[in-house]
């Protein structure tokens, strides 16, 4: 939870948690899941997007226009790119070579240092 989260209403806080935990949810499911009206759901989603706490993208779901509500990219767990103290070897590489020596080294680190 970051400093900005403390200014949220209880409804907004719950909504943000739902979006973060689901990893992404359509607005039409979002308000049902929270057990609030669609109008209120829409207002909360708009407000969270305006505060840049979530990303809100237009989407078609079950044949209806709606929005996909996603956590911000910056909230992703980037440590999943690490194995031990080694960062994924594909950074700055044009092609991903799954057989490269550098990737083998990364996998060794993963197997013996973390797992």
């Amino acid at each position, binding site marked *: 939870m970051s400093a900005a989260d403390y200014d949220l209403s209880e409804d907004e806080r719950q909504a943000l948690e739902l979006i973060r935990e689901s990893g992404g949810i359509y607005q039409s499911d979002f308000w049902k899941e929270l057990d609030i009206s669609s109008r209120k759901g829409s207002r909360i989603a708009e407000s969270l997007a305006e505060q840049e706490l979530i990303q809100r993208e237009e989407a078609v779901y079950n044949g209806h226009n709606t929005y996909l509500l996603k956590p911000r990219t910056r909230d992703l767990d980037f440590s*999943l790119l690490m194995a031990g103290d080694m960062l994924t070897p594909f950074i700055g590489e044009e092609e991903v070579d799954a057989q490269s020596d550098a990737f083998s080294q990364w996998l060794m680190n993963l197997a013996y240092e973390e*797992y």
Partner: protein
Amino acid sequence: MAFEELLEDPVIQKYLHDLVGPTGMPVAAAPPDGEVTDEELAEELGLELNDVRRALFILYENDLAAYRRVRDEDSGWLTYLWTFHYENIPDNLEEEMHRLADALEQRLQYESEHQFYLCENCSLRFEFEEAMEFGFECPECGTQLEAMENTRMVEAMEWRLDQLRDELNLEAA
């Protein structure tokens, strides 16, 4: 300095370090607010102008810096005014998470479809067919090759792939 919150993340520091290298790191680690010239950066950081320029162009190639050129009225020289765009770092790293997930998927298939033999002396690994060709003796040193379990690595790969899929909302292929 700008983007302080992002730069606190050790993974992001590591990412910048891997991109620009140790000589470029002073440039990458302290992005100023607003526009700056390469000469200003070199003087401020006490670096060679060439090292500063090299770091800036690497950042530029990765969408993390941009420049505009201004011609000096008197001298006629072009000045490059740089701005840092570290707001793109999260998107770049998300892309790297997708690439890593792809690589893990491919490699998992290979690892689970092959049997491996190891020369413990040279730490070389051979596929079953290769090992058979060499009569199960290391072509480098002649030591007998031993069957090698890769269960532990395969499990670690599956575990990390699950975590990545979960984080990125990917369906299992």
